[in-house]
């Protein structure tokens, strides 16, 4: 039980650290290029990554 609690803390701690590290190293997000809330009907095709993409 105690071991699982340590594992949970390590897991969530590692995820939080990763997000903080990534936030610190990534370029600042430019809000002027914010995409429309809903892609459907926006006329903008998604350029995001997906597991179905071969490249």
């Amino acid at each position, binding site marked *: 039980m105690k071991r699982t609690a340590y594992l*949970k803390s390590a897991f969530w701690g590692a995820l939080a650290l990763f997000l903080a590290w990534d936030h610190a*190293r990534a370029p600042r997000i430019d809000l002027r290029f914010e995409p429309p809330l809903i892609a459907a009907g926006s006329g903008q095709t998604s350029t995001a990554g997906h*597991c*179905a993409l071969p490249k």
Partner: protein
Amino acid sequence: MRRLPIAALAAALLFVLVWNVSVRQAALFAIGIGMGATLAGARFGFTTGWRNLIVARDPRGVVGQAILLALAALGSMPLLVQFPELKAALAPPSVSLVVGAFLFGLTMQIADGCGSGTLYKAGMGVPLNMGILPLFALGSFLGSVHLDRWLALGVIEPVGLVDHFGAAGALVATFAGLAAAVVLALAWSGVKGHASWLDRRWLWGAVLLAALAVLNLVVAGQPWGVVYGFGLWAAKLATAAEVFDPAASMFWSQPGNAEILRQSVLLDVTSITNIGILAGALWVAAGTASAGRQLTAVQWLIGLAAGFVMGYSSRLAFGCNVGAMVSGISTGSLHGWLWVPLAFAGTLIGLRVRRRFGFDAA
């Protein structure tokens, strides 16, 4: 941990996303939370459903999954025709798909969770799945790096049912395929009466997940995916550690992938829904008894190795149960239909390995 602090943390992250990233990413995080809460609340496990069908001749999980696919297709296919900016989960049938789907089906039984299963169980605090997640990410990353060599073995152009037959034709073909799968499952199970093949938990899970998958498509412009986000996280770490040069990789040197690798992970669609799924599952698990089980050192080793192979093979197969099966089939990609029997064949072997190492008794 109680649910209120978790809900407060999720709300805080939602606020940060709205304020600092985009309303769309915040919406996708909320959709991810819904997916995680549904997967965990309904215990909607793709792996368990297949295992129950084969081992216990219990078709309820597979019927639930067929309902999910049918409802998601019903919502997605007309939208793909109506809004040309929405993309289907089209992937090319290839040698890599054959090998990857088979290995994925095999290892998901050992690891006791597919892509979404690993995520929601890790969120719920199941020790093996928490341990698997980083290895899944590493495997997914390595799969993406090797993908060009796998594709060189043989690949054809993606086939989209909606493009070929229109929404109505694609829906008819999809429903016919799903009905055939359900009939086969019921015949194998030998069940009589709907109570033994239709379960309320699987049903409400299927309805909610289908609605959320369609919502994901409408908001993100692309179907629900899991694996890409995992590979991205490992690629970021490998690049930062200077052990990997994205420019030398066919996959990561593509302009779209290179840009996603460079920018904040909070801007990535798949990553943000993955984080939402973890948060939603954590919220459901809060206050309930731990679902963890005691494993031996050998079982841990086998389970972690299976998680790594699962990540690698899901990249070769162009998705896991979510990206290839749910999103592929519901948006009319032929690769989803090829993925299912290959992964099911792998599952038949995986169940033997699972039994050999005593996972069922654990």
